[in-house]
């Protein structure tokens, strides 16, 4: 089973899973995330359904909440 490192923890991954389906199934509660995927910064405006995760990828999610 392929795995990604999600916020520092090994998390199992389906073969050929996209970043969009992974986030929807594993992290449905994180609103407005900044996504750091192997060092690249993405938001939900990026075409996440076109990015395929692979074994050993590093993924960090940062929740952007309101206030300033």
């Amino acid at each position, binding site marked *: 089973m392929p795995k990604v490192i999600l916020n520092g923890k090994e998390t199992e991954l389906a073969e050929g899973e996209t970043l969009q389906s992974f986030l929807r199934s594993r992290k449905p509660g994180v609103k*407005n*995330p*900044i996504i*750091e995927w192997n060092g690249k910064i993405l938001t939900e405006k990026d075409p996440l359904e076109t990015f395929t995760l692979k074994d050993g990828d590093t993924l*960090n999610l940062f929740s*952007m*909440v309101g206030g300033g």
Partner: protein
Amino acid sequence: MEVNPYLTPQQRKILEHARIGVAGLGGLGSNVLCHLVRAGVRRFTAADFDVVAASNLNRQFFFADQVGRKKTAALAENLRRIDPELELDFRDLKLTGENTQELFADCDVVVEAFDKADAKTMLIGALANSGIPVVAASGLAGFGKSNDIRVRKAGKKLYLIGDLVSGISPELAPASPRVGIAAAMEANTVIALLLGEEL
């Protein structure tokens, strides 16, 4: 007159030649600018379309006699009372995914200082491939928990400040001390990046 007489000649040269972008002139932006001006930064590009409201005075660098005025004009006036020789390009406009990259193209660092969460992600997304470092904030409402507010680096050029959880809500309002901590940390991160100091 030098506002900050404690800089080395090398530090002064770097700070005076830098141009810093600030997206939003509210609790974060107005206080970030106050800190950067006092530290010796002089050139800024900033945008906000709002006017000063009485409810802003609990945390923003404005005064009671400025309520109703455009934030861009009122803040320029306040900052020039600290340093009259500032070069301020303050725009009364709404930043979008279309105009953000162009407005900040010649900035050395851009500070995300919006109130709304979706505007924060818009700004970060718009500058993600620009090569310009972005210093952003998330999670600063309420009181206490000072030590939960910290700096995280993401990717090569994004710096996130806050606790990432304390969003504003009817139960959790933004207040001067905690917003001020985050604003000071944003300003301190900008200066560390410019001078090559440890974050």
